[in-house]
């Protein structure tokens, strides 16, 4: 393991996303949307997943920019509906727009959020971006002795693994 694995650096576009939130005049709305979780991974919010990209006011309407994770992710529609519903509960009219570029990457998922994934039984993607083999640890017993059962698991974003030490079958969030 090299130092860069231990101290994850943040990709430039992720740094910009965090700055957009930090410098936004709509801080209360960003905070409100922390309640909107990923419907397929309810341990983490859309913000933590790197899906929630930007908030702007257009007159009295909130325009929410999100980025799709996988091209065919069926959860994207639900996410957009959940965002609109959450803002409506607080009395805001809103519209969700989708932005393709820069393409979503699991490298945007913060270290804290990766820990939440692990706690919910999902081996996190780490900070890489591609199919090159990453070390996958069992989220239950932390053993590195694991076997990939299938390239695709319960959703397109995950692969199915089994721990050879404790026997636990688990999902691994694939780095992309």
């Amino acid at each position: 393991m090299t130092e860069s694995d231990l101290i994850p650096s943040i990709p430039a576009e992720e740094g910009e996303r965090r700055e957009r939130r930090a410098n936004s005049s709509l801080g209360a709305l960003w905070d409100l949307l922390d309640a909107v979780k990923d419907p397929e991974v309810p341990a983490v919010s859309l913000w933590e997943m790197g899906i929630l990209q930007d908030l702007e006011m257009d007159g009295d309407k909130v325009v929410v920019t999100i980025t799709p994770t996988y091209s065919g992710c069926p959860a994207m529609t639900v996410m957009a509906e959940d965002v609109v519903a959450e803002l409506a509960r607080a009395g805001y009219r809103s519209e969700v727009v989708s932005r393709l570029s820069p393409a979503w990457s699991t490298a945007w998922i913060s270290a804290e959020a990766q820990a939440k994934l692990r706690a919910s039984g999902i081996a996190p993607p780490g900070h890489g971006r591609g199919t090159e083999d990453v070390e996958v640890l069992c989220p239950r017993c932390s053993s590195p002795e694991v076997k990939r059962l299938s390239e695709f698991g319960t959703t397109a974003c995950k692969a199915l693994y089994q721990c050879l030490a404790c026997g636990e079958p688990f999902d691994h969030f694939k780095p992309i």
Partner: protein
Amino acid sequence: MSVSKDEIKQYAIRLADDAVVLGHRLSEWCSFGPFLEEDLALTNVALDFIGRARMFYSYAAELADDGSTEDTYAFTRDNREFTNLLIHELNNGDFAFTMARQYFIDVYSLAYMEALQKSSDATLAAIADKAVKESRYHLRRSHDWMLRLGDGTEESRRRMQEAVENLWGYVPELFEMDELEQALAQAGIGVDAAALSDDWYATVRATLAEATLEEPAGDWSVRGGRQGIHTEALGHMLSDMQFVQRAYPGLQW
């Protein structure tokens, strides 16, 4: 050399047609996979292709600006209006055929989308950025299956060899460029598919050898998809895929 909006629209529809037709074919495996994990994998890959189709169709609709939507293109056009390359529409056959087809397309699609990432058209490049990441995982899996089935049992090898033979003649079409695609490639918008041919054959030949499979003779080939001339398989597939919108035009989910 400049190209018109309409030409870019036609190009986006071609790429969408490839993706929607293969996505639908893969979805036909749902609940028929050889085992549960593979069933999930096939349908997840199907979702990626349908998602890719939605992005290309939506862009085409935006360029058309005539009230068309992604659904207009997918569900209300006829057989002859579909412009997918023929390999995508072939019946699934057995699992070996489906995986060999997938492997051939994954090798092609990854190289194609990597080239499209450099398109001067920002939307096409953005869609390609997403597609490339997914294609890498598709390819890793389909490549594994080529080896497992090719270098497997006597029966799995026989089936995989037969699949490769039956697919080989659909490959040359992948690298053919008509006037539209030549113009788009010259303008820096579209991909020069002909330039991908040598690498494709080199990669696939190496995999065939590793999988103990023989390269087919290559004494036949068919083409016509980009011009709307299809095999008998597509019409049957569309009658299934488009049934709801044909029976209840404009129905909203």
